[in-house]
């Protein structure tokens, strides 16, 4: 008997199992996610984007955030960020069409992220108001390392794609073929491994700046 069969037999022996009805089990599992408001936290504000930003800037998440009306204003926002922090105007730009289409004149732009990259500009598919998280899917436009190598990570997300809860992200993608990686990123990299005290910039970015573009399609959190 293979190890696989031996383990499965041991499990079945311990559980005293007959055959299981997969559909019934799925219903039972789904029922465990009923009434989600009872088991998840309240949002920090009524509006989704407001709640998202409020969470992003809490000390726990320790990101910074700003809003712009249109994606075309992103290069100017990046320029302000660079200037305020005295950074060189060189950026690793995530190879996402929406970013590549913008006018980056005045910047030294490259699309490969160096191991010691200072600033990378990226695009997140979703924002999550509950946790202040950004969601990325690995694909042709999204190298995963670009989210982890730079010291400063500046991320654009559309207000219309800010979801209330992590569960809403799961629901929005249920049934689709998952990407190799889903990155749910919440604030900058941190560690509490030395005496429990939080230090940012452990291996990933030390600074996360989120630029929210446009208005939410639905302003209510519910």
């Amino acid at each position, binding site marked *: 008997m*293979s*190890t*696989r069969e031996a*383990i*499965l037999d*041991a*499990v079945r022996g*311990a*559980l005293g199992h007959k055959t*299981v009805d997969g559909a019934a*089990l*799925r219903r*039972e*599992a789904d029922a*465990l*996610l009923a009434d989600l408001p*009872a*088991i*998840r*936290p309240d949002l920090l504000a009524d509006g989704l984007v407001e709640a998202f930003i409020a*969470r992003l800037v809490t000390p726990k998440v320790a990101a910074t955030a700003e809003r712009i009306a249109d994606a075309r204003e992103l290069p100017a926002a990046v320029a302000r960020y660079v200037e305020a922090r005295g950074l060189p105007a060189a950026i690793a730009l995530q190879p996402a069409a929406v970013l590549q289409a913008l006018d980056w004149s005045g910047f030294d732009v490259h699309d490969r992220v160096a*191991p010691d990259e200072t600033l990378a500009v990226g695009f997140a598919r979703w924002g999550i108001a*509950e946790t202040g*998280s950004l969601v990325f899917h*690995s*694909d*042709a*436009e999204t190298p*995963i*390392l670009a*989210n*982890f190598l730079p010291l400063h990570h500046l991320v654009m997300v559309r207000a219309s794609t800010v979801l209330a809860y*992590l*569960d809403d992200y*799961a*629901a929005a993608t*249920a049934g689709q073929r*998952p*990407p*190799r*990686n*889903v*990155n*749910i*990123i*919440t*604030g900058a*990299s*941190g560690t*509490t*491994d*030395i*005496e*429990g*005290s939080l*230090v940012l*910039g*452990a*291996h*990933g970015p030390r600074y996360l700046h989120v630029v929210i573009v446009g208005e939410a399609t639905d302003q209510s959190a519910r």
Partner: protein
Amino acid sequence: MEEATLSFKARAERALADPTLKIAIDRTTGTAERKRAVAMSQFPQFDAARERGKRIKDHVIANLDHYLLEFERNAIASGAKVYWAATAGEASQIVVRLCKEAGAKRVTRVKSMLGEEIGLPHALDEAGIERVETDLAEHIVQLGGDRPSHIVWPSMHRTREQVSEMFKRLHRAPHQEETIEAMVDSARRELRDKFLSADVAISGANFLIADTGATCTVTNEGNAELTTTPPRVHIVTAGIEKLVPSMGHAIAMLRLLVRSATGADVTQYTTFHCGPKQPGDRDGPEEFHIVLVDNGRTRMLREGLKEMLRCIRCGACMNHCVVFRQLGGHVYGGTYPGPMGAVLTPVLDGLEKSRDLPHACTMNGKCQEVCPVAIPLPTLLRGWRDRSWREGLEPASVRFGLGMHAFFALRPGLYRMATAIAIRVMRLFSRGGVVRGMPGLGAWTAYREFPAPAKRSFMEMYKEQENQR
């Protein structure tokens, strides 16, 4: 290691005599306890969430065969290769073989308690494969050549001063300034190129998602993604109890896990890994292997420890344990310390070797109170004591003492007489309200006074009063 040959009590004495260790433990567990308390005060839904989390895990465990097969099917469909290991040895052999097949000279590892449990660091070292621990705490453990002492903060036994000294000695470009920030920077510099030059990445999984075949890691440093993305091969080792039906269930568990562990609402990086690199992907491994590990879990299912399979490895039980907070994790002698470790180590290492662990607990119930999946840890620990008693592992002196106690306590007349005699003997040794120098009381009086009894027992005096009424 010398430590391993000592008895639990000897290891405990050594830990209690180490003031630096106590400082280190207090700094980390104290911070963890405070942050968890704040997180709980901001999450009034915790009790309901915890009940739900418990039910989710119970549901999975009650249908574990089904979910294992569903996970396997979906993982294979995503392009992953799935392996099954019955024991720790089998699991680490599979990993070492995969590393060798990949021609690996250097592997990077993401902290995983299961990896520790199956002895993976040792197996890789034995196989002559360079192992780079990328979690900061595991990096500190590796530099120090010792073992993790906590499941969330493996290097909790090191003070910042000790870490600073090690980094200065062993890093290529160590920090100049004596701050934790500067030390973290030093590790960042030290590990950077190693992330990018490894041949194989090895991680654990916080959750296995049955309906997609994805594995989920949670980290705060970002080391999991930096580790698992560049190499050509990514190997995941995971216990079979890590399953959840779907991502939605993982999210419900995540809310409990992170608040209980660090007091954050969610980890900085929560990543789902599904199969190898897909067509068009800019980066990612070409091979994705998942090793499903039993190593005692089906035995736990069979032998009355199935509630323990709910454990999501948050560490709250140890952060709140009065015994752990005096001793730290190494004293427990196994992979897992604290209350959850005292339940698991007898499964993994055998009760005979670890019978002290279930006893070294005051049964105060705090661990159960803070457990995010409501594991009745004291009950499970008492279960081990019961088993140890039945298997004859308890010392003869204890068996005799409790036998005598029961003999008298079942015979009230004799019991009164014995009590009266005991009181009179104790009073012979009493000075100024306390008992001094009485044989048999040394374990107590070595450290604290033993308050002397009153002249007569309650029952004696009560009977006399009643007779006079």
